[in-house]
């Protein structure tokens, strides 16, 4: 599994949250290695040391407004400098976990709601009490942000347990072309984007890492066979869809408002030229089967401008779609 760099505090508010969180944590942990604190808070050791240096010189102005030593936090400096451990020896004003903000609570509550169809969320009373605790952990209530539960099928449970057991899966997979193939896959990760769920894994047929839509998977079987050596070595890239050398790049005009909605298909290095309400740019697709579906879903908002054969494929797709209605009408008229 890939190790991502800890995100770390990004702005002053994040840094303040770290400072305020460190104090109760350090009070509960008499002497703790910097690296352990960094791991606990998902920041770098340097960020921890910087924060502790700041804490050690902070405090209250005091009667004289001179920030005298008794009014400041203090740490065991020898411990820090010689052993890279933190020991808080004096605290002022605060000593407890701060409350959650209304947005912080809302983010967690909405995340819980989204995942509420997972088996481990099945105890509804326990979930309700957990959400109530978050709400109560704020000073002014959670913000009104909610996500409807994702519709999770049994396949998710089967895949998750195969990932944990490190065993193979076999299933029928329908490609965007409409062909169905039996695939043997070493499952690595389940991902989702809103309502769409994906399996990423090592595909034995393609001998490469592939991303599979869960709603295109049929007849899923967990074989119990251990995953292959390939899969054990794979480092999954962050991006769900990776470009490949065989990908096709086509020029498109996109209505500016629709641009974020097709962002996944626009290569990072593609130029975007705004021209009134339209942006001239490029999209990358594995094949024209995928392209025609994408473009037809954004009727009037995404138009292929080049190459001509890509335009022809899209036009034919739309023509064939319309023809089904014309044919049905003709058949109905003939019946009458």
């Amino acid at each position, binding site marked *: 599994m890939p190790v991502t760099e800890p995100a770390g505090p990004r702005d002053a508010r994040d840094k303040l949250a770290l400072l305020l969180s460190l104090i109760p944590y350090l009070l509960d942990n008499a002497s703790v290695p910097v690296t352990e604190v960094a791991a606990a808070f998902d920041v770098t050791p340097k960020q921890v040391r910087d924060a502790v240096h700041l804490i050690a010189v902070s405090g209250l102005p005091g009667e004289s407004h001179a920030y005298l030593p008794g009014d400041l936090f203090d740490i065991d400096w020898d411990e820090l400098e010689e052993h890279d451990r933190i020991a808080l020896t004096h605290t002022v004003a605060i000593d407890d*976990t701060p409350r959650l903000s209304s947005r912080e609570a809302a983010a967690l509550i909405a995340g819980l709601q989204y995942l509420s169809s997972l088996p481990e969320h099945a105890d509804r009373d326990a979930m309700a009490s957990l959400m109530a605790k978050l709400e109560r952990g704020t000073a002014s209530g959670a913000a009104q942000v909610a996500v409807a539960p994702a519709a999770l099928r049994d396949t998710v449970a089967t895949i998750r347990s195969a990932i944990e057991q490190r065993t193979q899966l076999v299933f029928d997979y329908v490609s965007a072309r409409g062909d169905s193939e039996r695939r043997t896959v070493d499952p690595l990760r389940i991902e989702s984007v809103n309502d769409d769920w994906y399996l990423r894994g090592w595909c034995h047929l393609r001998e490469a890492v592939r991303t599979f839509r869960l709603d295109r998977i049929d007849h899923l079987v967990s074989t119990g066979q251990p995953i292959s050596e390939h899969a054990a070595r794979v480092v999954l890239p962050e991006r769900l869809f990776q470009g490949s050398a065989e990908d096709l790049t086509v020029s498109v005009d996109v209505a500016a408002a629709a641009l974020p*909605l097709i962002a996944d298909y626009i290569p990072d290095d593609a130029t975007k030229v705004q021209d009134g309400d339209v942006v001239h740019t490029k999209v990358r697709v594995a094949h024209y089967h995928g392209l025609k579906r994408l473009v037809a879903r954004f009727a*009037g*908002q995404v138009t292929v401008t080049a190459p001509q054969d890509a335009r022809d494929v899209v036009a034919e797709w739309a023509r064939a779609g319309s023809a089904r209605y014309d044919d049905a009408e003709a058949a109905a008229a003939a019946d009458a």
Partner: protein
Amino acid sequence: MSPQKVSVEERLFSLVLTLVATESGLTKSEILSSVQGYNSRYREGGDNSALERQFERDKDDIRELGIPLETVEDPGDRGNNQSLRYRIPKTAYDLPSDITFSPQEMALLRLAATVWREGSLSADSRRAIMKLRTLGVEADDPLVGFAPRVRTREAAFEPFEVALERSAVVNFDYLKPGETEPTKRVVEPLALVQFHGRWLLHGHDRGADAPRTFLLSRVIGRPRVTQLGFTRRGTDYASHAIDELQKIWDRNLAELDVLPGTDAWVRLSKREDTRRTESGHLLVHYSDTALLADELAGYGPEVRVVSPPRLVDAVRQRLRVTFDAHASAVHGGEVDARD
């Protein structure tokens, strides 16, 4: 006295400590003249307006972290801005001591937090987990190989979220499906909800003087958060909005003639609540005709809508638009994407 360079977080931290430590509260000039980060720039009896503006912004930053920074009016001197006192009551600052989490709950919360990996809510969930970690509960069973994600890509999301938090009226242009020109909306935002993968704003539309729900993807341009505040009259707007959308979903049913074995067949038959008719057609539920029409148009000839007529028309119209935009050779780049 050379003013030392004090970082923003140091100033905010010093301000929080000072305001927690005071019981009766401090006036603005007491704060600015004594607290680290302001004090070296404070001029006794002079013009401190720049410092005062900074203090206003700092108060907002602190409150955004969920810290209850209170204002207390001097009973003998009401309405005088200079005699207002500021404080952070310790009891309102501390997480109530009876709030604890089990290792299983901690695991659920950490997973819930990972759902937000982009956008402003990812910073919020990261900070929430940071605060909760201080409770010293280790999550059991780290979730391997599971990376669910909710996206907030729509450009309108952040302004709406800000407006929601401030209870501020928001103005925006909204393009209803089937209309060619957007209309201006003035809305009191009440909830942001995601339903079947789409973000919606639920609010009170001042123009219509009625509750309305707006799809964020139909907002044109960037919404403007106004200085106008409003008072919420109820609670639980978000769950009510989702209940309403669910009712619409349950009520709307489309009958589709789908070619078996195709991509459309596989995906539509796995869609939530889909059923099959005796004649082999699929019955699918939906909440918005235009959204379903977009999706179905993408399937081209794999799907023919049988009913309702409104959906038939919407899909045929989309296929026609796509055909017209792609049927001819391009001449000199003269392709109007919104024919």
